[in-house]
């Protein structure tokens, strides 16, 4: 009989570019990736073991050691902290009898931290064996751990009412909530599966005409950078290559963002049709939907929809009844790494490698997946474009502002009455949003716009307008109330996140994030000097020499709070004397020597 590993390898034709799938399948079967298994994989793929291991160790959901029959991944993002994560973590440790980062002696339960899992509107939340548990309480933790001891399945452990909308459907069956508090004209409006393709075949639109229509609508990228979508498609269409590829970026790793999860849950056909439309426009035959591993629970649901689409002729040969257009879509999962949301890192990851961003040029539109012209678009962007194809550019331009057309789906979380998802037209002010989501304006200390890589603004900027021309954002707003220690709880969490999530390839990003973290630690410990604050501003040009956006934006949590909340830094500077090294502590420095010689102080 063939081993499981050999079966998996065969399933992927022993193709090293499918290493991610191979590792995921083996780990899901065995619970972890034992070194002999990695050796077997390396042998078959004819690559070295360190080469396999460098992919494995890049992603935090992969493990070469057992992580327990039940592996608990508890979110440690800022909003989780704000919503009482510490108590939940304590409860898990107490009930399980082991610390975070450890596995119980009987190998039953493993406890692990994980950055934002895309459930910020229902924190504290955890992933246990791939299943999402939301709104945890200490009582629930006790129940869950008791259930583990009794040998219940994860589904049984969950034992909670199902979530809203499609979450409750047979093929999804999840307790996650959508929390859609405002629907808009583009995304959360009516859409019939296949409608966008039907529009193309009914109007006999050529690929160029599709691109023209999207161009006329003014759709720009919703993944953060705001690149004009039609232009990207046009570049790719014109680039030479045997094959062209469409990627949908559903990595959604920016802490505080979860709108793509809701769009995938409620409008999967709009997303997938958007990929198909893009595929038609650029001349692709294959589309890949790259999802973060945190969204693994959507797999069966999405696979079923893909199967339905194939059965309905919306995918496959002459897809959507468009003569000569063959197109199909497959899912690709990551395994836990924020940087994989960066488009070239995403492509590297999809090729079975570490998610290290590439040097540009060449850009993915010229040389992307497997060296072929590739577009990478955000989930929401593809939806916007599909809707434009159906309803026309003129209609679309009536929504939003003159330079920011259409709608934007926001992920709102933190200190407000109604955290969740809101589809608004571009042009709302931050104040409008605070009112809409039930945040008490007097009690809001700061709003983090666009996640850690965005900016942290104070009330004097709440009149700014969400749009590409003023306050551009991928759509996440974290509302931070007065009661939180902004530097300690928020800013430190963010800079620590970047230091851990840097791919580590560029010296500037890898080392500088650690320098920022260390300097902030010093200030928080009361050893900071005024010159430390100034130094952190002076370091910004160094960050800008990094290869990708992660490195460029990593100082933002610190820099934007120095700019907007300088008094918080100044207030922590106890000693104004700049002439001595204030972080030097004689006692700790000689502690080891003292211990060695048995000297007591």
């Amino acid at each position, binding site marked *: 009989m063939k081993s499981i590993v050999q079966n998996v390898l065969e399933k992927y034709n022993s193709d090293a570019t499918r290493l991610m799938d191979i590792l995921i399948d083996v780990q899901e079967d065995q619970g972890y990736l034992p070194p002999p298994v990695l050796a077997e994989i390396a042998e078959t793929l004819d690559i*070295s073991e360190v*080469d396999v291991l460098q992919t494995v160790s890049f992603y935090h959901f992969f493990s070469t050691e057992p992580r327990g029959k039940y592996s608990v991944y508890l979110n440690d993002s800022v909003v989780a902290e704000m919503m009482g994560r510490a108590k939940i973590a304590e409860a898990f440790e107490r009930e399980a009898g082991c610390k975070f980062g450890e596995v119980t002696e009987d190998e039953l339960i493993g406890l692990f931290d994980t950055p934002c899992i895309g459930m910020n509107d229902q924190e504290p939340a955890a992933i246990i064996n791939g299943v999402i548990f939301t709104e945890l309480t200490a009582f629930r933790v006790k129940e869950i751990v008791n259930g583990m001891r009794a040998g219940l399945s994860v589904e049984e452990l969950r034992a909670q009412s199902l979530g809203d909308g499609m979450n409750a459907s047979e093929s999804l069956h999840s307790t996650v909530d959508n929390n859609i508090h405002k629907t808009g004209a583009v995304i959360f409006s009516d859409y019939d599966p296949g409608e966008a393709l039907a529009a193309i075949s009914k109007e006999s639109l050529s690929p160029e005409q599709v691109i023209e229509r999207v161009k006329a609508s003014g759709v720009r990228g919703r993944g953060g950078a705001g690149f004009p979508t039609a232009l990207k498609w046009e570049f790719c269409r014109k680039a030479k290559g045997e094959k062209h590829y469409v990627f949908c970026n559903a990595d959604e790793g920016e802490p505080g963002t979860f709108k793509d999860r809701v769009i995938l849950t409620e409008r999967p056909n709009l997303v997938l049709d958007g990929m198909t439309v893009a595929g038609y426009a650029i001349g692709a035959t294959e589309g890949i939907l790259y999802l973060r591993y945190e969204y693994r629970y959507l797999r069966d649901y999405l696979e079923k929809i893909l199967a339905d689409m194939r059965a309905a002729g919306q995918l496959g040969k002459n897809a959507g009844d468009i003569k000569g257009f063959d197109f199909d879509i497959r899912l690709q999962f990551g395994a836990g790494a924020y940087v994989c949301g960066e488009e070239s890192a995403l492509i590297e990851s999809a090729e079975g490698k570490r998610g290290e961003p590439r*040097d540009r040029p060449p850009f993915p539109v010229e040389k992307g997946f497997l060296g072929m012209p590739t577009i990478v678009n955000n989930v929401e962007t593809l939806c916007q474009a599909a809707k434009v194809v159906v309803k026309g550019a003129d209609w679309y331009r009536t929504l939003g502002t003159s330079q920011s057309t259409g709608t934007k789906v926001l992920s709102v979380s933190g200190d407000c009455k109604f955290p969740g998802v809101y589809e608004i037209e571009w042009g709302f002010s931050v104040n409008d949003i605070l009112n809409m989501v039930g945040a008490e304006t007097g009690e809001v200390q700061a709003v983090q716009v666009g996640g850690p890589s965005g900016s942290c603004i104070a009330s004097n900027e709440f009149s700014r307008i969400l749009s590409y021309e003023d306050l551009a954002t991928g759509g996440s707003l974290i509302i931070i109330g007065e009661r939180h220690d902004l530097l300690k709880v928020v800013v430190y969490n963010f800079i620590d996140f970047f230091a851990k999530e*840097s791919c580590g390839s560029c010296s500037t990003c890898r080392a500088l994030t*650690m320098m920022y973290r260390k300097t902030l630690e010093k200030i928080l410990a009361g050893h900071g000097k005024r010159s430390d604050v100034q130094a952190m501003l002076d370091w910004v040009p*160094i960050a800008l020499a990094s290869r990708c956006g992660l490195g460029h934006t990593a100082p933002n949590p610190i820099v934007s709070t120095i700019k907007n909340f300088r008094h918080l830094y100044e207030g922590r500077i106890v000693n104004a004397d700049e002439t001595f090294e204030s972080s030097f502590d004689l006692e700790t420095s000689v502690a080891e020597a003292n211990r060695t010689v048995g000297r007591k102080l």
Partner: protein
Amino acid sequence: MAKIVTFSIDGQKCMAEEGQYLVDAAETNGVYIPTLCNMTGVPPQGSCRVCSVKINGKLTTACTTKVSEGMEVINESEEIQDLRKAIIELLFAEGNHFCPSCEQSGNCELQALAYRFQVLVPRFPYLFPERDIEASNPKLFKDHNRSILCKRCIRAITDERGRRLFAFGKRGDRIGISIDTKLAANISDELADRAAEVCPVGAIIRKGRGFAVPIGQRRYDGQPIGADVEQAK
């Protein structure tokens, strides 16, 4: 014959074959652009960022960018030079570099750049990371304290079947270099020599040989790094 393009570096007119990488093209024109992770003959990967230049106003790495007609490059502005100096300081503060006791002293590219850029005290706090020394391999000695994570060994050292002997492990603040114990156990003398040679610092040292060239007569003891390029002009 390849097409010749003209471009400029700091206002000086230069010529090169189209498709050449900017670092190499600069060298042909007698202009030194400092590098650390780059290596002739191995596809570039902009890791160290020391070769940062401004091209048509935009910050880019010269080792990964190909020259094109009319390109305007800024190489030695105050801003760029300070950026490079900062990067060298970063690398010193990030690892544990005790030059006086290092076998590579005098041949080390990092140390040589620090001299060239007159680094005295880094502007960053020292991190003093805890890193290992690996001595189990019969021919190579790996001192992780000194690695600047430039990926040269990863990119350049493969066996006859193209399998890598070195690779990264983990990411971000926990990243490190790993060696394939199985493949490296039978490493040939030539490949072991090559591995020690590609490492710009003293993180890969050849066992059983020490101070073959005495201090004082080493590569950068007589003249600063880059001087050969500038003198060839």
